[in-house]
């Protein structure tokens, strides 16, 4: 078990691929914002890569273990310590009852850190997933972020703890972080010539845009697009702005919603349906990068991809998030 001393900025229980199959019921998938971070941490401690762990955003979590466990930390380096001693990222670590783990703030790159524990985080699955949907306040740990006094239970490890401790990743398996994230994306469903201009789409796929500080687990907002982006004068019956259309379901996670002139990436907890056009989708295998993008600091750029490449990348990612990545 883990007793929370300080919940920090935001710590959530998340798994992967999250709560699938409820978009039509108004429930997005939620899930780990960076599934690569969670996946690699899980591999290190011998869990299936999608097992639930703790998603630590921003930093400052402080908590005490009440038993012997093996954990791993993956993601941005928040200078974690156990009982005041620095500990390694991307490594399976043995912890004992009474050990206090403490995180500082985010590194110059990356925004989220994942804590996986052998046996996984033990919260009841809701509609097939242990993920927290923070905007709807359901799933995970009582549908909310962890706070002081919370006691987070862990499952039993299937492997012998002493065999797990010390496991490391191959150097090439550790993801490369940046302040300028290149996201491969597939255009659609609303592009040129009917909704956007060719010039507008070219701009969308070439410019570098800062992640706005108003971004969160539902929406990552980017810089405004010029009026020349739109091919229509208005949205007809859908509304007065050319970004308006009659409500349609959003292809989340990963759809880029054009809301007025503001492009918004709809991510983990995003809305499942609405009245704005969508110009592209980030490929599933690149969604993790969005989760490591720091609002107000990092930049994003879209790079044209294809369905074929996206499927290839899904397969590669499965391989990446497996024991093949262990050193």
């Amino acid at each position, binding site marked *: 078990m883990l007793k929370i001393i300080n919940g920090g900025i935001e710590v959530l229980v998340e798994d992967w691929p999250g709560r699938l199959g409820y978009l039509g019921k108004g429930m997005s998938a939620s899930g780990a914002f960076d599934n690569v971070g969670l996946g690699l941490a899980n591999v290190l401690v011998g869990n299936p890569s999608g097992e639930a762990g703790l998603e630590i955003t921003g930093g400052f979590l402080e908590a005490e273990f009440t038993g012997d466990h093996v954990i791993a930390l993956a993601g941005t380096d928040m200078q974690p310590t156990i009982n005041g001693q620095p500990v390694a990222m991307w490594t399976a670590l043995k912890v004992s009852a009474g050990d206090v783990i403490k995180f500082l703030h985010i590194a110059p790159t990356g925004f989220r850190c994942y804590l996986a524990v052998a046996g996984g985080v033990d919260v009841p699955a809701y509609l097939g997933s242990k993920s927290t949907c923070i905007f709807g306040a359901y799933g995970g740990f009582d549908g909310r972020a962890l706070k002081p006094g919370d006691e987070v239970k862990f499952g039993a490890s299937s492997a012998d703890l002493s065999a797990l401790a010390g496991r490391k990743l191959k150097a090439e398996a550790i993801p490369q972080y940046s302040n300028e994230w290149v996201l491969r994306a597939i255009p659609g469903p609303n592009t040129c010539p009917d909704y956007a201009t060719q010039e507008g789409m070219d701009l969308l796929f070439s410019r570098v845009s800062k992640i706005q500080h108003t971004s969160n687990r539902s929406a990552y907002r980017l810089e405004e697009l010029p009026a020349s982006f739109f091919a229509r004068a208005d949205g007809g019956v859908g509304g007065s702005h050319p970004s308006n259309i009659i409500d349609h*379901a959003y292809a989340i996670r990963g759809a880029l919603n054009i809301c007025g002139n503001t492009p918004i990436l709809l991510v983990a907890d995003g809305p499942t349906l609405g009245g704005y056009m969508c110009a592209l989708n980030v490929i599933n295998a690149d969604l993790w990068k969005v989760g490591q993008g720091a609002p107000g600091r990092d930049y994003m750029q879209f790079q044209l991809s294809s369905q074929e490449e996206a499927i290839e990348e899904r397969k590669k990612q499965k391989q990446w998030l497996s024991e093949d990545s262990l050193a």
Partner: protein
Amino acid sequence: MSQGRFDVILDTMPETESRLEVLFRQAGDGFVQVEYGREQRAMLQDSFRMLAVNDIILGKNLKGLIETVPGIRTNLLHFDPEAVDVRGLIDMVKQAEDSMPTIDDVVLKSRLIHLPIAFEDSETKKAVAKYQKEVRPDAPNIIDGYNLEYMAMCNGITAEECKKLILGTDWFNSGGGFWPGGAFLWPTDPRCAIVVPKYNPPRTWTPEGAVGIGGPCVFTYTTPTGGGYQLFGRTIPVFQFACKHPMFKDGPFLYRNADRVRFHEVSEKEVVEIYGHVHDKTDYTYEIDQGEIKAKEYIAWFNSEEVQKGAAELKAKQAEGTKKAPRL
């Protein structure tokens, strides 16, 4: 088809007498959007057909199809591209479309849910008062502390007439989304099709069970949340996170696609008592009839002289009302 870098239409089916053109639009590596027609229009007959096709698609239990998410004129298919390829998926939808060649073939399973409603109840009045105090003190859509008079004004009718129209039609669920358990309910009778603008800016709080209208759609709020629809009353729970009541044993949702809702007026006391019987005692019995919608019959009724005359009369009143009602 052109071969532009941003060409996203993967395939099409031509328009027929009983169906609009079908467009298959690329929407990432795990989704494809099926769009009906190129024009932005909201017609229930399009939705009836699409949902009937959707039932056929779901009935095939295709491996790799995760879910379908119908809107009023689009259906989003969510799939695992490692289990089924997009080409196979499109071919399956085409087969489903072709299996309903005429309008006579379009028969849609549709339950009729009877929901009690208390107009102008004290809980939704609290939400309006909170909005006026904390968000927009000069909101022109609040008259005598509520939205009903403004709704009536927009439609060129009285508040009493407004209530009669809400009670006088069945409200069709074209598909859920946006908020957990939510459904977008459209009037089936065009003679009752009131239309109102949405709040500007939105509310920060709405009670569970609040009933509101925005544009042409009614929404019954499933949990306390913000919102932008004009409020006129409160109904009973249509969602239960805890899944305690037998109605919610398979999931927290009451509504299914293609359900129709019919409201009947009761006292606020009665509505409030039902909350206890749904959430605590779990012994309330929901009144739900099984049924179906035959598209051909609906279209004939919709196009009949009597219905069209009544619809035109309401439209004329709305045109007058829109001139008088302040914009939000």
